[in-house]
C-alpha cells in the first residue's frame, strides 16, 4: 500500500570511509542506494562536522548524527520532529556505548546480534519502545567475557527469559529485585567552564555547565533525597525522569528513586550573571611577518585564582592557519606535537606549578609565497581541577528512605575546562 507512515523507517550505520556496515529496517526494506544522497552531502560538506543533520531526498528524508566516527543515518518518510530522531539516535549510540564499552565499528560488528536485538527492542514500527538502559538490560544481557564463554559451552543465551518488570512498575527506569552486598551511592559533581577570552585577556563570555553523574548500587527500592547547601546557584536544571519535579520546585531537594547503575542525575547551568572565576590565564604572542616565510609563537600559561588547588591535565590545542608549514618550538614543560597535515598544534602541559610557568616558544615556518595569515589562531585550553566545584556548589546531605540498610555514600567534585577558548 502507499501508506508508509512511521517515524524511523530504516537505519544505516556508515563508517568514515563510506562503508555501510549495518542496516536495519523496521518496515519494508529501503535500498542502500538512498545513502548516495548522504554521501553527496558529505562530499559537499568537506568536513564531517558540516554534514547537515537533515537531508531531503526525492522520496525520503535522511536524518543523521555523527558519533565516534560513525554516521547513524536514519531514513524518514513523513513529517517527524527532527530532534525526536536525533535524540533517539544518540540514545542508540549511548546504549551501544553502555553495552560494549565503546561505540565503535569493531564493537558493533563483533556484537552484531546483540545490536540487532537492541534495535529491535528499542524501536517498534519506527516508534521508540524501550530506551531505558535498566529495562533493556533485563531484556538483553550485555556481553561479558565470562558470559560469552559460559554461553558458548552451555548454549544459553543473552536474552532474558523473565518478564521485564520495569515495564509494569510505575518506575520504569529501575529494574526490580536489585541486590548488592555492598550498598553504595556515588555522585560526581562535574563542572565545566565554557569561556571565550579575548585578545586582551578579558572575559567575553563565561558560564558554568555542570552535571551530576551518579553511580548507584543500592538494593531494593531506595528512595533518595539529595540536598545542596546552596541550591539557588543552579540557574537552569534538567532532570533525569526519576526526579520528582514538584519536590524540587518547592524545596530545592532532589528526591528520586534511582535507576540501577550509572546515570546522569541532573545537568545544570550556573548563569553567566554570576561572575565565573577563570582559573588560568594565557599570555600569548603570535605574529606572522609580512613578506617573510616565518612567524613567532610564544605562549605562557599560568594559574589564576585557583583556591589553593592545582590545575592539572592542561592541554592546549591550536588550529594553525593553512599557510603554516612547520613549527620549531621549545617547551619548558610537557611536550608538543604539530601535525603538518591537519595543522593542529597540541601541547600537553600537565600540571601547572606557579613557581615555574610553562612556556612554549619558537618559530613558525610558513609556505613561501603564501600571503600572511589574516587571523591569529584561537587557543583551546583544557584543564582539570580535582576536588573543586568552581561554582561553589556543595552537596549538603543524602538521605535514603524505603530501605533499612546503611549505604556508603560518596561525593566527588571536579572542575574542567569545557569549551574554553582564548582568542589571539
Amino acid at each position, binding site marked *: *500500500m502507499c*501508506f*508508509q*507512515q*512511521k517515524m524511523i523507517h530504516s537505519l544505516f550505520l556508515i563508517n568514515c570511509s563510506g562503508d555501510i556496515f*549495518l*542496516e536495519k529496517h523496521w*518496515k*519494508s526494506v529501503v535500498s*542502500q542506494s538512498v545513502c548516495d544522497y548522504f554521501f553527496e552531502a558529505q562530499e559537499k560538506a568537506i568536513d564531517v562536522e*558540516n554534514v*547537515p*543533520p*537533515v537531508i531531503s531526498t526525492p522520496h525520503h*528524508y535522511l536524518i*543523521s548524527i555523527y*558519533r565516534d566516527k560513525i554516521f547513524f543515518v536514519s531514513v*524518514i518518510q513523513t*513529517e517527524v*520532529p*527532527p530532534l*525526536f530522531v536525533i535524540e*533517539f539516535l*544518540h540514545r542508540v549510540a549511548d546504549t551501544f556505548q553502555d553495552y560494549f564499552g565503546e561505540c565503535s565499528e569493531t564493537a558493533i560488528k563483533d556484537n552484531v*546480534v546483540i545490536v*540487532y*536485538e537492541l534495535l*529491535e527492542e528499542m524501536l*517498534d*514500527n519506527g516508534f*521508540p*519502545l524501550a*530506551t531505558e538502559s535498566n529495562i533493556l538490560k533485563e531484556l538483553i544481557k550485555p556481553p561479558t567475557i565470562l558470559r560469552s564463554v559460559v554461553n558458548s559451552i552451555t*548454549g544459553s*543465551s*543473552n536474552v532474558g527469559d523473565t*518478564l521485564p518488570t520495569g515495564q509494569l512498575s*510505575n518506575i520504569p527506569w529501575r529494574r526490580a529485585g536489585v541486590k548488592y552486598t555492598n550498598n553504595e551511592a556515588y555522585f560526581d559533581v562535574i563542572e565545566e567552564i565554557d569561556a*571565550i577570552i579575548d585578545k586582551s585577556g578579558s572575559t*567575553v*563570555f563565561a558560564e558554568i*555547565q555542570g552535571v551530576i553523574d551518579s553511580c548507584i548500587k543500592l538494593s531494593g527500592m531506595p528512595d533518595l533525597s539529595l540536598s545542596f547547601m546552596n541550591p539557588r546557584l543552579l540557574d*537552569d*536544571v534538567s532532570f533525569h*525522569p526519576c526526579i*520528582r519535579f*514538584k519536590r524540587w*520546585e*518547592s*524545596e530545592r531537594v532532589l528526591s528520586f528513586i534511582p535507576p540501577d547503575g550509572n546515570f546522569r542525575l541532573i*545537568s545544570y*547551568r550556573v548563569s*553567566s550573571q554570576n561572575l565565573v572565576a577563570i582559573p588560568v590565564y594565557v599570555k600569548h604572542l603570535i605574529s606572522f611577518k609580512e613578506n617573510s616565510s616565518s612567524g613567532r609563537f610564544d605562549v605562557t600559561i599560568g594559574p589564576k585564582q585557583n583556591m589553593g588547588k592545582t590545575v592539572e591535565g592542561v592541554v592546549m590545542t591550536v*588550529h594553525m*592557519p593553512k599557510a603554516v608549514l612547520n613549527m620549531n618550538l621549545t617547551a619548558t614543560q610537557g611536550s608538543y606535537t604539530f601535525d603538518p597535515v591537519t595543522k593542529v598544534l597540541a601541547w600537553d602541559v600537565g600540571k601547572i606549578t606557579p613557581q615555574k610557568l610553562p612556556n612554549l616558544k619558537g618559530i613558525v615556518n610558513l609556505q613561501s609565497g603564501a600571503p600572511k595569515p589574516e*587571523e591569529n589562531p584561537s587557543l583551546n585550553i583544557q584543564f582539570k581541577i580535582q576536588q573543586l566545584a568552581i561554582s561553589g556548589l556543595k552537596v549538603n546531605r543524602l538521605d535514603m*528512605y524505603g530501605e533499612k540498610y546503611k549505604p556508603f555514600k560518596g561525593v566527588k567534585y571536579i572542575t574542567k575546562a569545557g*569549551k574554553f*577558548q582564548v*582568542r589571539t
Partner: protein
Amino acid sequence: MAASPAYGEEKGGSSSLGEPEYGHDPASGGIFASDYKRHDDLKEMLDSNKDSLKLEAMKRIVAMIARGKNASDLFPAVVKNVACKNIEVKKLVYVYLVRYAEEQQDLALLSISTFQRGLKDPNQLIRASALRVLSSIRVPIIVPIMMLAIKEAASDMSPYVRKTAAHAIPKLYSLDSDQKDQLIEVIEKLLADKTTLVAGSVVMAFEEVCPERIDLIHKNYRKLCNLLIDVEEWGQVVIINMLTRYARTQFLSPNQNESLLEESAEKAFYGSEEEDTKDAKAEAASLAKRKPYVMDPDHRLLLRNTKPLLQSRNAAVVMAVAQLYFHLAPKAEVGVIAKALVRLLRSHSEVQYVVLQNVATMSIKRRGMFEPYLKSFYIRSTDPTQIKILKLEVLTNLANETNISTILREFQTYIRSMDKDFVAATIQAIGRCATNIGKVRDTCLNGLVQLLSNRDELVVAESVVVIKKLLQMQPAQHSEIIKHMAKLTDNIQVPMARASILWLIGEYCEHVPKIAPDVLRKMAKSFTNEEDIVKLQVINLAAKLYLTNSKQSKLLTQYVLNLAKYDQNYDIRDRARFIRQLIVPTEKSGALNKYAKKLFLAQKPAPILESSFKDRDHFQLGSLSHLLNAKAVGYQELPDWPDEAPDPSVRNVEVPEWTKCTSREKRKDKVEKPFYSDSEGESGPTESADSEPESDSEESGSSSSSGTSSSSSEEEDEEEEEGGSEEQSEDKEGEEEEEEKRKKKKEKGGPRKASPRSVGSEEEEEAEGKKVKKAAGPQGKKGHAESSSEEASASESSSSGSDSGTEAPTVVEAKRRKIPSSKAGPKEISLLDLDDFTPPPPQPVPSSSIISTSLVTDLEGLTLTDTSLAPALLSPAFGAVRTYELLHRMAGEGLSVEYCFSRRPFPGDPHMVAVQIQISNNTDAEVKSLRVSEPKLLAGMRIQEFPEIESLAPGDTASVVMGIDFCDSTQAANFQLCTHTRHFYVSIQPPVGELMAPVFMSENEFRKEQEHLARRGEGKLTGMSEITEKLTLPEKCRSDHAIVQQVTSAANVGRVPCGADNEYRFAAKTVTSGSLVLITLEWREGAAAQLTVNSEKMVIGTMLVKDIIQALAQ
C-alpha cells in the same frame, strides 16, 4: 509468489520463482558458490535438534541481514523454527520473519498459527511480542487476523500488551487503509486508557491513522494533560505536538487583548511589522466583543502541565514544549522557554543545529525573549560552519540599538576567521544590521569599505555585494565609495562582485560622471571573457550611460551591443536586441523610446535585507517542515486560532454510571454550574484526570500555595477562584471533622458489634446507611451534612430542586439497600454490606450476570450454612488486623503514623479500599492542619483523602479513614502527608489480600464459578487462570480454626461452606474491578496440602498464593 505454501516449503525459496528443476538447490538464484555452501550448512544447522546449533545458525543469518546480504532463500528452513522453545532462537527467527515475510508471503503464513497461540500465552511479554511480530509481517492476507488480535489486545489487562496493540494500529493501517473505521474504534477505546504506558503510543496511532478526528480527543484532553508528566519521553513529544494542534482549534488566542494595548505601542516604537493581519483581525474581534479575554481553564491546564517538561533531559521534549509555548502561550509567558532552549545549545551538534534553526525563527518574532542570552550565541572558532552561520543569524536577529555595538565588536573578530564561508556570512550579517539599525549604518559601511582592501577576494566580493545594497539607501552621500569601488574592477574577479560594481556605477553614473565611461571602456575590452551576469550588467551600464551621457559613450555602447549580439548565451543576445531597440532611436522604434530614460533610471527601492527565517513560523516549530522550510509529507498544518471558541463543555467527562459514587456525582453537578462559582476542598489526582476544570485548577492552586512562588504569578486568573474555594473548603472541613469523629466512634464499636450482626435489626442497618451517607455528605454539597436523621436528609436532598440529581444516587442506594432486606429477612445484613462494595458490572462482561444469579442462590443457601459462616467471615477480619507503619516517629519528627486495612467498605466509593490511619503526635507542640496532598499515583488509581485534621494536641492520637482505589494492583499509593510546617513523603502499599472483599456464595455456586472460569481460561486469552501450589502445613496450623484464621488474615476473603472435611474454600472479589477470586485449600493427609487459586487477575492470583502460603507456614 504464486507457488502454494506446501510446494514452496518442500522445494525451498527459489521454487516460488517457478524454477522447479533447481528446487532442491537453495542457492539456485545466486551465482556465488560460497554463498550456496554456507547456506547449505546453515540449513543443516537449522534442521538439527540442538538449540545451540540453531542459535549459531540464526546468529549468522542475522549478521547477514545486518550487512544487507540476501538471506531470503533460507526462509523455509528458518520459518520451521518459529515454534522453537529456546527464547533466543525464537527472537532471532522473529527478526528474520519480519525482514523477509513480505517477500515470501505464502511461506510466512505457516508461522501465523504460532503467533496466534502466542497471543493467548499467560505471559504478557510473549503475548506482546507475538502481536508485535504478527503485526509486523506485512502480508495482506492476514489483515482480518491482525484486526482481531489488535482488538483483543486492546482490552488486555496488561498495559504493556495494550501498548503493543496501539503500536500495531498504524502497522495494520499502512497495510490496509480500509480498516480505518474499525481501527478508529480501537483508538477511541485505547485513548480512554488511563495508563501512562499506553498514552504515548495511542496518540501516535491517532496521529497516523486519524489526525483529523480531533473530536476523539475532547473527552481525553484533561486526562492527557494530567498524565503527561508521567508518560515516557517519546510519548510526551507526540502528545505535546498533538495537543498544540488541538489547542489551536479549541481555544482563543491569548494575545488578542494584548495586541490592542501593547503591540500597537510597540509598533510605534520599533516599527516592527509584526502580525499585521492578525492584529487587525484580533482588533476587530475584540472591539466587536469588548469582552476581556479570559483564558479557558483547559488552555491554562495545558500550559501549566507542560511547563515542568522544559526541564526534561530529552531535547525533543524540551523542543516540543517550547513550540507549544511559542504557539499557544500569552506573549508574556513565552519567555520561559528561552532558558531551556539555550541549555540545549550545549548538547550534540545535531541538536544544536535544529535548536538554532528554531531559535532563529523565534528570535524574529520575539526578540526580547533571547536578548538576555545574547552571549550564549557567541561563536567559537571550533564550531562547525553550519552552526556558526546559524548562530550568526540569531545574533543578527537579536541586534538592536542598545546591543549593536557589542555585536559589531564581536563581528569584527569573526571577519578575521579562517573559515571563509563564515566570513562571508558575517559580512551579510553586518549588512543586515546596518539596514535595520539606522544609527550604525555609517559605521558598518565604513567597516565594509575597509574590507574592500582585504587580501581575500571572497571577502571583498561579499563586501561589494553588501555595500551595493547599503548604498542604494543613500547614494548621494557616498560617491567616494562608489569611486573607490570603480577602481576595484581592475582587481576583483568574482563575477557577482563585478556585476554589483557595474550596476552601482550605472545606477549612480551622475555621481561619478568621469569615471563611468572609463569603466565601460575597460569592460568593453574584456567583454568576451566575462561571465554572463557580468555581461548583462555591462549592457545595462552601457545603456544607462548612453541615455545620460551619449556623447562620450555612444560608440562604446554600440560596440558592446554588437559584441553581445553574437554572444553564445541567448539571454545576452536577447537583452542586447531589446536594449538596442529601446535606446537607439530609429524610424521603426515606437513610443517606448521616449520613455527609455524613465525606464532605466527610475528610482529603485532599496532592497530589504531580511532573514531567511522570516515567516518560517507558519510551520509548526520543531517540525521537519520548519527545518526544511518546505512542507514535508504528512505534515499537519497548524490551524489558526478560531474567532469564536468552540464549546468548552465537550471536554467535560461524564462519569460512567457504574463508577459514580455519591461524592463524585455531586462534583459533576457542580461543573454544570457557572465556572468559578464553586470548587471543592479536596481533589484526588484521578478526579483531575477525570477532569472537572475546577478540580484541576484547584489542585494546582493548592500546590502553588503550598510552596512554589514562581508558578503562582501567572495564575492570576485563578487567584480569585482559589481564594473562594479555600474559604469554603475550610468550613467544610469543620463539618467533616465532626462527622469524622462520630464515625470513628462507630468504627471503634465495630469489632464488638460484628459478631451479633447476624441477628441485626432494621435499626442497625439504618444506622449503617446513615453513616455511609454522612461520610459522603461533606465531600459534596455543604449543608446536607448537617442533617440529623437519614429520613430528613434524604427528603431534603430530593427536594432541593436544582441539584437533586446529586443526591439521587444516595437515596437510590438507601432504597436499594432496604428492598432486599425486607425480602430476605434478618440474615442478609452482612450480605448487603457485601453488596455495597461489590460493584455492579465489572469489566469482563460475562461475569456480571453470574454475580446477580449467584446472589439469588446465595440467599437460598444461606440457611444451611450460616453457622459456620459468621465467625469465619467476621472474626478474623477484625481480630488479626495488622498495622503498618506509614511514618516513623523519627522520620516524622515526632509525628508517627500507622495504618491498617480496616476491611470495611469505604463509605464514599465501593471501589476503594478503606485504610484506617492512626496519627499520634509525640512532639510537644500542637500539630496543625494535617492533610494529604499531592498524591502521586499510578494512572487509574485514586485517593479519597481524609478530611484535614485541624490540630492535634501533643500526645494526642487521631484516627481517620481514607479510601484508595488501588486499581487491583499492589502498586503503592504515594502521597504527601502535610502538617502546617512539614511535608512527609509516604506511601501505602497494600498486601494483595487487601485488594479484595469477601463474597458470599454457596458451595454449588462456588463450584459453578470455578468451572466456568476454568473453561473460560482455556477458551479465551483474557480468561481466568488457575494457580495450584503444594505446601506443607506446619504443626500449629493443622486445625480448621487455624487454617481459616491464617487464610482470612492473609486476605480479605469470605469463607464458602464446603461439604468435604478436608477442604476449605474462600471467595472474594477484587475491590476495583470486581473480578472473582476463588481459593481452595485441600488438606491431604499429614502436613501436605494443596492450594488452588482461581482468578481472572493473574497477577493477583499468583501473589495471593504466595501470601497465603506464607501465612500458613508461619
